[in-house]
């Protein structure tokens, strides 16, 4: 096939693709030129699409002087309304106050605005970080926790093998026995679960609040265990090993896009391996935007007292 044939073939294909419209506008024959003439138009339009695109352009031209970009996750989404010129701004804001959902994000053409998609990715990244990071050893030391780990060897195994996240090695069980009081009234344990960030954010405030509340009812908090690669049913093993009346597990919740710092307390009366899930009582949504950690701690202390008094937990415990 020579060059001439090739050219005519491409022309005919282009003609077919663009169809009648191309004939009317007579642009199909010179596609390269069309691009050239249209391109500046597109560029000229672009800055008008969204204020943010325009605003960020001069920044790019500056030399790098070590400055950081503003942290977009600092923006309170409930107070950010991107709809230009809304009919009822106050009404919109009131609606936004009631939900963490991303309402009023507006659009650029049929897509999200840059700020919206960046923020979504940032929040998603924070959620992933919370799952894949570890509670630091310094933090475990500072809180005076007894560190142990389940059978999982790393995060990947933790994610893919839930069964291993609830088992301990023989050595670990020995270590648990050594560091805990047998048949204590209460055994508190902390697990990284699916958010290490939640543990680091809430533990400093919730542990002393629980301890203070329990003391009021005459119960002592002994050593607190810290379980790496922890799944909720690992508390059942702790129950069997320590023979405590009540086991309370503070564990990081699966993070979402609203917060990565939400923690739950799973509490059960005499938990044992293989017991029905319905025997656990859960207090979830413990974070600065939900139930404050200190208040949750005071509530948990009272709940533990009720469980000890009534010898029941979960759906057996009518509250």
């Amino acid at each position, binding site marked *: 096939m020579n060059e001439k044939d090739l050219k005519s073939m491409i022309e005919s294909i282009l003609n077919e693709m663009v169809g009648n419209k191309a004939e009317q506008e007579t642009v199909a024959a010179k596609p390269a030129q069309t691009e050239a003439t249209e391109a500046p138009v597109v560029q000229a339009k672009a800055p008008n699409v969204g204020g943010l695109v325009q605003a960020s352009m001069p920044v790019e031209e500056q030399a790098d002087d070590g400055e950081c970009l503003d942290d977009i996750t600092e923006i309170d989404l409930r107070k950010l309304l991107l709809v230009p010129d809304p009919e009822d701004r106050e009404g919109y804001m009131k609606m936004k106050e009631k939900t963490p959902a991303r309402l009023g994000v507006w659009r650029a053409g049929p897509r999200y605005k840059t700020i919206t998609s960046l923020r979504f990715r940032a929040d998603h990244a924070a959620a992933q970080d919370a799952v894949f990071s570890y509670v630091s050893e310094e933090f475990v030391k500072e809180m005076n926790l007894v560190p142990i780990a389940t059978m999982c060897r790393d995060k990947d195994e933790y994610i893919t093998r839930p069964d291993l996240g609830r088992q301990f090695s023989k050595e670990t069980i020995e270590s648990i026995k050594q560091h805990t009081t047998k048949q204590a009234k209460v055994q508190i344990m902390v697990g990284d679960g699916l958010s290490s960030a939640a543990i680091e954010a809430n533990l400093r405030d919730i542990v002393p*609040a629980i301890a203070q509340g329990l003391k009021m009812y005459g119960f002592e908090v002994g050593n607190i265990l810290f379980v790496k690669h922890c799944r909720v049913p690992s508390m059942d093993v702790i129950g069997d090993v320590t023979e405590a009346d009540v086991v309370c597990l503070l564990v990081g919740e699966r993070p979402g896009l609203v917060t990565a710092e939400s923690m739950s307390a799973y509490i059960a009366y005499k938990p044992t391996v293989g017991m029905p899930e319905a025997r656990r009582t859960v207090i979830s949504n413990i974070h600065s935007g939900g139930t404050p950690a200190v208040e949750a701690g*005071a509530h948990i202390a009272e709940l533990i007292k009720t469980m000890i008094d009534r010898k029941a937990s979960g759906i057996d415990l009518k509250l």
Partner: protein
Amino acid sequence: MNEQLLSVGIDMGTSTTQLVLSKLHIQNLASSFSVPRLVITDKEVVYRSDICFTPVLADNRIDAGQIQTFVQEQYRKAGIRKEEIQTGAVIITGETARKENANEVLLSLSGFAGDFVVATAGPDLESIIAAKGAGAHTYSKEHSTSIVNIDIGGGTSNLALFADGELLDTGCLDIGGRLIKVDRGTHEITYIAPKIKQLAERRGFQLALGQQATPADLEPIIGEMVKLLEESVGLRPPGDFYDTIVTNKGLKLDRTIPCISFSGGVADYIYQEAAGDVFQYGDIGILLGRAIAASSLTQRMTVALSAETIRATVVGAGSHTTEISGSTITYTEESFPIKNIPILKLAAADESGSDEVLARAIADKLNWFKLNNDLQRVAIALEGKKSPSFQEVQKYAQGLYKGMSELLEREYPLIVIVHHDMAKVLGQTLYALLGYKKDVVCIDSVQVDNGDYIDIGKPIAEGKVLPVVIKTLVFN
């Protein structure tokens, strides 16, 4: 869980006394997987009494005996026993609140009506209760607007301004339907209230006792009363008599108010035309209502229909005075109800410093509550902090503990009211500081201010929450 509270409201007004029974529905709105969150989800009026004239003895004192008989009779008609009443409020309003034995009658009646039926009085509270009974706060919330409700009774007009469901301001004017009384048969003027007399004199209107009155004769003075109402909501600038007619204070008027609603006995004649003689009640109520209906109050403002008119205050007292505390609270004391406790609300500056600053502020301000060097029972109120750290809770507790040392010597419990959700941990911390020896009542999610009083009822919903009434007790 769905629990009901039977609540009574009793209104002793300038001209009428009435009673309603309401049911307050309480539900836990939280899921089973979080801390409880109990709220009042519904309020319904289940019984409305007859409306009787407020009985007054010859020496111008309130006839307490006759009011008690009235309450007893209404309970019997409604088919309930006094013991079934769980909460409620007696409010004494308008001219009746100024009677010599008002305080005495109020306190004895609240005890007579039920174990946790609280005594309330004061023009600001009256305005709020009437407006809530009329449904103004709900209207402003549902329509995202601001609205003023004017409760026009026999002796006073009570104003309350709401924006988006929140109370902004209150005011009270000495304008009412029974400030001029007219004999039903002869149409002779039998009574003119002092301020109205003064107003007529200043304007040079002929108005005297014994004078045969026609609607035309009364038109000028009623016109003046309507003008003052227009001034009170900012439809015209305040005139020379405005400050005189104001009972205690007017609205601030720093914004235009788009909507208006009316309640009180006169409201019926604003919303609808009266049939029969205009002097059928022996007063100017019907004429005043008509004049308001024809004024700029209805022409320049959007008029909202009230849920209640003459019964707005009593429905407000029955349905809208009881609140419930936050659902995570601390109380170690069991001898409820605790009644008529004045509130000491700390300033923001007192809370922002160290525990020492807080302690000093409390100790200083407690002096305000000393009568003849004897300290009364006081509840300490503070704002608190959203999601505080455990350290901050300790700071608050230390400050309260040190500052309240003088209160600790009394036998009654320590009462702390905090706005933000932290009462359970704060109460437990305080109780620990007190060596578990002194009783503590620490509640949250209740907003109070200096000058308010609080009444706390018996725990409800398996002891999770305490019913509370925030109120004033102001007699003139």
